[in-house]
């Protein structure tokens, strides 16, 4: 009775794998099409300087999107990232303003720490306070922004008050790649690998896929969930340092409204808002796509007012695409089951 051949690579399974791959592939194709079209209209879109600018502009969004993806995969959301970015950017900037000698590494670590602390608070409130993530992070979004405003008042830290080594971090390159881009790549790939290949990562997927089952399976849900929020917060904090270095001008409103861009990047990148599926590098691609659209519109001299509408349409398109893929997988699986 037990002599049943292992069902290897059934058509449905291949279809399933293929469909999953198309999700990220779709973004890549969209990206290529957009770049080719834009470059055909204006070859300078592909100049070294232009590519460098796009990548630099993507870096901050991508770092935050990586963190957000982790939280969204656990079927939560972190709306406080924009405010955390502001707080971290202002904290780091005032610190460097007062102590110009602080090395870059320390600045980055401080940004990470500020964000991690904010994320930990979110996580603790969600987990132990049993308050839904949307409510908690909406609340802390207001709170951290308020704290940043109260702290900064009308103050600004400006480029001339910041040490050279800090500002040049945004422009200096290693192997031709600007530091912030390198940081973003390391973050996105690092988080992707952890989420894909390590137990902790798979447990986060499991938690998002079925929170109740995760509890019953003995997964350390509290630890993991707070960890996910810490990651999101810390990466928002890191993004704050990159923001400060890149833009040089930092006041309490830094990163205002970023949360929606970040969520948009994650959704466009194929991470399901209902948790459990999607990839971190997909979210990174989503960030890149959004940024490229912004630049392309400028280069193509399309009324920039279209940009936001296009982003909105894209989000809707992305979730529709996910839906279609899900339905097709379900159909493929059902069909196969009915043959058994």
């Amino acid at each position, binding site marked *: *009775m*037990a002599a*049943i*051949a*292992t*069902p290897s690579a*059934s058509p*449905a*399974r291949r279809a*399933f*794998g293929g469909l999953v791959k198309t999700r990220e592939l779709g973004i890549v194709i969209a990206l290529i099409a957009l770049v080719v079209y834009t470059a055909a209209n204006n070859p300078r879109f592909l100049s070294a300087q232009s590519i460098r600018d796009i990548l630099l502009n993507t870096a901050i969004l991508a770092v935050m999107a990586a963190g957000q993806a982790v939280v969204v995969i656990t079927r939560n959301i972190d709306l406080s990232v924009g405010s955390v970015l502001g707080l971290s950017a202002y904290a780091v900037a005032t610190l460097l303003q007062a102590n110009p000698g602080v090395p870059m590494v320390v600045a980055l670590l401080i940004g990470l720490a500020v964000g991690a602390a904010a994320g930990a608070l979110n996580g603790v409130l969600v987990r132990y306070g049993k308050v839904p993530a949307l409510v908690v992070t909406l609340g802390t979004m207001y709170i951290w922004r308020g704290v940043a405003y109260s702290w900064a008042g009308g103050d600004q830290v400006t480029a001339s008050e910041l040490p050279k080594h800090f500002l040049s971090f945004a422009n200096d390159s290693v192997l031709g790649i600007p530091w912030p881009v390198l940081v973003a790549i390391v973050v996105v790939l690092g988080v992707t690998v952890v989420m894909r*290949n*390590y*137990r902790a990562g*798979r*447990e986060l*997927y*499991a938690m*998002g*896929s*079925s929170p*109740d*089952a*995760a*509890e*019953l*399976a*003995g*997964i*350390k849900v509290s630890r993991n969930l707070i960890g996910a929020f810490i990651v999101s917060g810390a990466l928002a904090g890191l993004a704050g340092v990159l923001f400060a270095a890149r833009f040089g001008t930092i006041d309490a409103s830094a990163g205002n409204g970023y949360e929606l861009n970040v969520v948009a990047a994650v959704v466009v990148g194929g991470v399901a808002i209902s*948790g*459990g*599926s999607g990839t971190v590098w997909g979210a990174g691609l989503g960030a890149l796509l959004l940024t490229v659209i912004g630049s392309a519109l400028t280069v193509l001299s399309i009324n920039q007012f279209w940009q936001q509408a296009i982003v909105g349409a894209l989000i809707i398109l992305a979730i529709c695409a996910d839906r279609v893929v899900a339905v097709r*997988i*379900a159909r493929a*699986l*059902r*069909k196969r*089951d*009915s043959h*058994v």
Partner: protein
Amino acid sequence: MSALLEVRDVSKSFGAVAAVQGVSFPLHAGEAHALVGENGAGKSTIVKMLAGVHRPDTGTLVVDGTPAEFTGPADAKAAGIAVIYQEPTLFPDLSVAENIAMGNQPLTKLRQIDRKAMRATAERLFVRLGVRIDPDRPARGLSIADQQLVEIAKALSSQARVLIMDEPTAALSGVEVDRLFAVTRALRDEGAAIMFISHRFEEITALCQRVTIMRDGKHVCTEPVEDLSVDDMIRRMVGRDLSALYPKQEAEIGDVVLEVEGLGREGVFRDISFTVRAGEIVALAGLVGAGRSEVMQAVFGVDKYDTGTVRFLGKKLKGGDPRAAMTAGMGLVPEDRRQQGLVMELSIERNVNLPRSRALSRLGLLFGGRERSEAQEWTKQLQTKFGRLTDPVGTLSGGNQQKVVLAKWLATGPKLLIVDEPTRGIDVGTKAEVHRLLSSLAARGLAVVMVSSELPEVLGMADRIVVLREGHVAAELTRAEATEETVMYAAMGQETK
């Protein structure tokens, strides 16, 4: 024979309700131990305490002779306890192999997950269970039976010394149950301790050596299975003798109420035709997965169908519209009480009146008094036990919840009542009450369609039996023709001997 795990005088209460009071029993290595009791007797609470989900208010769990305190499921797992829950707890987005390996995935040197090894483990387990499920497919979309099998594979993979199974067979077919028992016996003989919960006594006698009986959260007795007859067990569970379980009343058969013709839905069922008359109880029998619930849900309109027609009281019924069916005089007591039958957070009153709020309104407005009195009347008629009508229905026991669902539909004054597994997961006492109720309703001229997996129930209650197999009608049997054998043979697709 020493106890691997011992439950010592544990109590647990939720709010004012004492779910478990001072229960003790041991689980020995190499022994399968049945835990039986009516619903609400506290079995599931015991399971959750052993699983580390709940912590006992008082009393202790003793593992290998030392008291253990489980702060969460992880601790229970670490102590070698694996649990298979009544309702499968899989991760729909993850692959089957990942579901099985979750928590103890094989790792490579870099502490990354070794996917190859993970897949191999899953395949090995499936071979051992004798099932074919693709380890790489996501768990989403698996049938309930397959999900339960993956759960079992999960428990096996953790090399548990104590295996707790809370009604694992409810969704399985006979073949699958046999295979599960074979594996379980093997585990038992290798020295594992098994705790087995079921409402099916034949399974208990087939598998278990010892049985603990609970009633109202209290320990009644723990004895070797061979010392107790099924009647003994029932008597101790209920605390009294039971009159006949299937009190079929003779009813006058009236006109055709429901006429289903050529109903089909791609990949689910095809060419289903049958009729139901007033005063008649028609049972839909068949194995799990044969498409019985799906057919009736399509008839009622909660699911869509592709082909065929449903005629009700002579008129063609619009498909895919439960409200139309409801207004025409149909009611459906669904299979899954928690998900489909009730809104657990809402009050008893709201649940009872849910399909009827329109009828109860005056000028489109609802005022509390009328809803209250209606709810009162129907819950009283069905002898439902509850604190206040405003209590959330989730606080009731399973049997009383089922009564609320029945009240909800009877209140609409239906001409046809579809009941899907009307007695699943409810205790013996309430079961008899439900049977008596259905029988008397039919006697009063109601047409009843009953979907049931319990053969004795089908044989005891039905005037006619429609047997489905793999989505089509395999046989239609009269009460006289129907025996356990004829129904099973039809359901399994074998020739009647």
